[in-house]
C-alpha cells in the first residue's frame, strides 16, 4: 500500500459518513480531550497542599492559618484552567454551535476536535500556578506578617502564568463560534 492508499484508508471513509454524525463524533472526542487539562490543576494543587502542610508543620503557632488561607486562595486560582476546559467541554456537549453550521463536514468536525485539543494547554498554567501557590504558602508560613504582600505577588504571577491558557481558550472559542475555516 502506498502513501496515497494509507491516507485513503485512514480518512477516505469520512466522505461516506453523514456530515452531522461526523461533527457529533468528533465533538465527543474533543470534549474528552479537553478535560485532559485537568492533569495540570491536579498536580499544581497537590503541590500547593503539600507545601502548605510543610509550612504549617514548621510554624504551627503563627503560620498555620495564614499558610492555609494562601494555599486555598492560590489553589482556587490554579483551578482556572480546569474550569476553562470544563466550559469548552460543556459547550461542545450541550450547546454545540458546529452542529447547525453550514460547511464541509470534515472541517467542522475537526474544529470540534481542535477546540478540545487546544485546551490541553491548560496543563501548563495549572502546574505553574499551583507551584506559585505552594511556594507562597511556604513563604507565608515562615513570615506570616508579610501575608498581604506575598499574596499580591502570587496573584500577579499567577495571572501572568495564565496567559497561555487564555490564548488556548481564545483559539478554542474561535474554532467553535467563528467561521474562519471555510
Amino acid at each position, binding site marked *: 500500500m502506498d502513501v496515497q492508499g494509507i491516507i485513503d484508508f485512514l480518512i477516505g471513509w469520512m466522505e461516506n459518513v453523514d456530515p452531522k454524525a461526523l461533527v457529533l463524533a468528533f465533538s465527543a472526542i474533543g470534549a474528552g480531550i479537553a478535560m485532559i487539562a485537568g492533569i495540570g490543576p491536579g498536580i499544581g494543587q497537590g503541590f500547593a497542599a503539600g507545601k502548605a502542610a510543610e509550612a504549617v508543620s514548621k510554624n504551627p503557632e503563627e503560620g498555620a492559618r495564614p499558610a492555609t488561607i494562601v494555599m486555598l486562595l492560590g489553589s482556587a486560582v490554579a483551578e482556572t484552567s480546569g474550569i476553562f476546559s470544563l466550559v469548552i467541554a460543556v459547550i461542545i456537549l450541550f450547546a454545540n454551535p458546529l452542529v447547525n453550521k453550514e460547511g464541509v463536514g470534515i472541517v467542522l468536525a475537526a474544529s470540534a476536535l481542535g477546540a478540545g485539543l487546544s485546551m490541553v494547554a491548560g496543563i501548563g498554567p495549572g502546574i505553574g500556578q499551583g507551584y506559585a501557590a505552594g511556594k507562597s504558602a511556604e513563604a507565608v508560613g515562615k513570615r506570616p506578617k508579610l501575608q498581604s504582600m506575598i499574596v*499580591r505577588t502570587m496573584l500577579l504571577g499567577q495571572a501572568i502564568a495564565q496567559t497561555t491558557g487564555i*490564548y488556548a481558550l481564545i483559539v478554542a472559542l474561535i474554532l467553535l463560534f467563528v467561521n474562519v475555516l471555510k
Partner: protein
Amino acid sequence: MDFSNHVVTTVNLFGFELWITESMVNSWIIMGILVLAAVIIRIILQRRTLQAVPTGLQNVVETIVEMLDNFTVSTMGEKHRNFGPFYGGMFIYILLCNLSGLLPGPKYVESAGYIQFMRPPTADVAVTLALALITFFMTQGYGIKAKGVKNWAKGLTEPMWPLTPLNVIGELANPVSLSFRLFGNILGGTIIMGLYYNLPWFALVGIPAALHIYFDIFAGVLQAFIFVMLSMTFVSSAME
C-alpha cells in the same frame, strides 16, 4: 442553549446600523447605579459639615476611598498616588459588572431559564477589550510622557535591535491577554451557571448558592483585582 450577547434593538444612525446589545444595557444600568450612589452620597455629605473624626456615612466613604488609594500606592508607588481615583473607579466598575451576575435582570429573550440573571457586561469581549485598550494607550502614553519619544522607542529595541518585532508583539499581546483573562473567567462562570439553572428543580435547592459564591463572588472579585493590578503594573513599569 444560548449564551450569546443578545441584541435588544437596532438603531439607525446616519446610515449605520447600531446594535444595542444586552451588555450595553446592563452596563448602563450599572453606570446608573454608580452615578446615582455617587450623587446621593455627595448630597448627604454636603448637607452637613465634614468632621475631622468621621462618623457614619462619611466614615464608610473615607474607608473605601482610603482603601482604594492604598491599593494604588502599594502597587504603583507613592509618587503615583494621583492614579488612585482613576483605578479606584475602574475597580468599582469592574467589580460591580462581575457581581451583576447575582442580580435578577431584565429579560431579553423568551427562551430563558426559570430565573433570569443579569448577564455580566464583562462577559462580553467588547467591554473587556475597551478596558484593556484604555490600559494599552495609558501605558504607551505615560511611557512617552515620562521617558520622551526617543527613549520610549529605544526601549522597544532592547536588549538588542533584532528583538524589536518580538517587543512590539509583546506590547500588543498585553491588551489581548488582559481582556481575555477577564472575559474568559466571567464568561465561564456565566455559562456554567446558565447550564446549571436548566437542570430540573430538585437540583436547584441550595447548590446554586455555592456555585454563585465561587463563580460570581470569588472569581468576580479576584478578576477585578487582578485586572486593575495588572493594569497598574503595566502603566507604572512603563513610566520607570
